[in-house]
């Protein structure tokens, strides 16, 4: 017991030295904070973002840094806990960072954001998907390189009403968390857009013997398209029975259906079905390079949100360079007006802070395979 106490004391002393040295470093560096869950249960979500930030910064520093100064990372752990995150944020503010890559968890991010906002610090999360973080407008300093939870629903609704020009939509879900959540988002969006009408909103029973009653209902409702929130077993049953009934209602679904099992089970009936899924960037040269750099340095494949954090760091540094300064207003302007090539493709940010060009794409089953629709 005594030994452990001594160990911690020594560790604490060493750590304080470490932070002292980092404080005393020359003021000629530009400091970027990296915050998130770096220990605890969710460390596996946070640590890849440190590695990503380090790789990007090494790259930039080798080329002479940004604005003629070297970049320095200040890494702080929030253990994914909102109550810790406020301290983490206060520490980073004290370190005078100009921007923060993080935090990882939505709850911790929200807690920390108020503090960054008061100090005018740009914060860019690679992983916080909670929709209100950007959509509420409460945090103008917040950006993210991941699509919010409702992005799929947004894309499905826009695709149906704008690309396909549909005016009568049936929204169905499987009563599960994922499917119903999506369906609720889609319903709210269709209602607030006011372009199309929801002619039917129904939950179906998973594993039911057949869906003929609900299919008759869809037919009777006069829906031109169905937006279905759920997984592929129900989707393939629905689409098969609809097609057998001679219905050609357009079927739009989500990530849970964008699965090869769906095509295998639904067979020829799968043809023409639309489903949204994460945009595939793994073939972009920059993505390949980033993954390879990680492989070379750490000898393993990168973890969760690595590419998102990589892109976030790239976007922040690019904004500083384009703004020609670390001034908050100038950086904000650069983030919202400049496009930047990242591991997630070519991205920019909208006024609310969500990344344009990141997230989901619409795919369609064509000749037995999902094909991305550009």
């Amino acid at each position, binding site marked *: 017991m005594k030994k452990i106490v001594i160990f911690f004391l020594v560790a604490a002393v060493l750590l304080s030295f470490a932070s002292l040295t980092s404080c005393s470093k020359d003021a000629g560096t530009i400091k970027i904070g990296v915050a998130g869950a770096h220990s605890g249960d969710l460390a596996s979500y946070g640590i890849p973002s440190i590695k990503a930030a380090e790789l990007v910064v090494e790259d930039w520093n080798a080329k002479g840094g940004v604005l003629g100064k070297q970049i320095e990372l200040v890494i702080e752990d929030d253990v994914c806990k909102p109550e810790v995150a406020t301290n983490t944020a206060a520490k980073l503010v004290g370190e005078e960072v100009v921007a923060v890559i993080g935090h990882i968890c939505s709850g911790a991010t929200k807690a920390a954001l108020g503090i960054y906002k008061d100090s005018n610090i740009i914060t860019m999360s690679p992983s916080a998907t909670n929709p209100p973080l950007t959509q509420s407008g409460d945090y103008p300093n917040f950006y993210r390189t991941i699509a919010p939870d409702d992005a799929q629903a947004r894309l499905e609704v826009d695709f149906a009403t704008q690309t396909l020009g549909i005016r009568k939509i049936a929204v169905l879900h499987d009563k599960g968390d994922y499917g119903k959540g999506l369906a609720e988002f889609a319903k709210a969006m269709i209602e607030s857009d006011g372009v199309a009408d929801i002619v039917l909103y129904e*939950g179906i029973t998973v594993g039911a013997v057949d869906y003929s*009653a609900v299919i008759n209902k869809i037919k009777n409702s006069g829906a031109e398209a169905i937006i279905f929130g759920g997984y592929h077993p129900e989707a393939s049953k629905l689409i*098969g029975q609809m097609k057998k*009934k001679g219905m050609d209602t357009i079927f739009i679904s989500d990530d849970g259906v964008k699965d090869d099992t769906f095509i295998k089970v639904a067979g020829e009936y799968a043809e023409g079905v639309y489903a949204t899924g994460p945009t595939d960037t793994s073939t972009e040269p920059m993505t390949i390079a980033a993954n390879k750099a990680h492989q070379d340095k750490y000898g393993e494949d990168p973890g969760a949100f690595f590419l998102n954090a990589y892109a976030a760091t790239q976007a922040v540094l690019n904004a500083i360079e384009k703004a020609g300064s670390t001034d908050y207003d100038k950086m904000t302007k650069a983030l919202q007006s400049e496009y930047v090539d990242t591991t997630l493709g070519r991205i920019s940010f909208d006024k609310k802070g969500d990344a344009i060009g990141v997230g989901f794409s619409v795919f369609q089953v064509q000749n037995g395979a999902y094909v991305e629709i550009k």
Partner: protein
Amino acid sequence: MNSTYFIELFLGGLTRGSIYALIALGYTMVYGIIQLINFAHGEIYMIGAFTALIVSGALAFTGLAPIVIFLIAAVVAIVYSASYGVTMEKIAYKPLRTAPRLSALISAIGMSMFLQNYVLLAQTSDFQPFPELIPDLAFLKPIENIMNTTQFIILVTTAIVMVLFTLLIRYTKIGKAMRATAQDKIMAQLVGINVNKVIMFTFLIGSSTAAIGGILISSHVGQINFYIGFIAGIKAFVAAVLGGIGSIPGAVLGSFVLGLTESFGTGYISSDYEDVFAFAFLIIILIFRPSGLLGKSTKKKV
């Protein structure tokens, strides 16, 4: 609401009811004869569907006409399921015939879990596409949007099975023996009926009808997995109770009532509450007729 919509919902409900009826028959017959709720019955339905899938998959390369493959697959599936049913009775229920009824019930639940996991391990946990082997009937083309071929086949097959059943129970020797065994097992033995054989026969035909149901509904929805028997089995059990467990016409009536309730409930109110309608209806019926629609109230002899 228009009348086509009503007819569509009505036919959809009948189709569902037919499938429930094919499964419910097995439940109700077994209950009528040995007072056992055979929870593994839904699994026999699932095994029937899987056997048909495997056989038709193997025959797909022979170049036979789809309908021929379908019939061969159906026959094999029926034989296979029937032997499963009989074996199940021999292993899990016969040794417990004199044991308290609860023991046999637990044995049935165990059998159900065993068969589900057996298929899960021996086959796969994924959904499998079920081939479309029933060719579209030409005369149904004009009303395809109201009733398609598989629905039609389901309705017709169920009707035929029901008629054959009634004839079997009413006019054949084994039917008479079954009725006698159901009434009084000991007395039946005294008059020279081989009760064991009768029970075996009951499982045999109960399992065969379940297999028919499995094949038909799989052709209708086009996919199966190891778990389909559970939900179908529960619903069929509800149908059997609704109609009065132990009564064969009751099981059929209960199945159609359940199928139609679900279909109209979904169609005119909301599919969110599909199961709620089914079970709410069951409770209401049981409040007014505790032994089901056509069940006889048993009078205990003093």
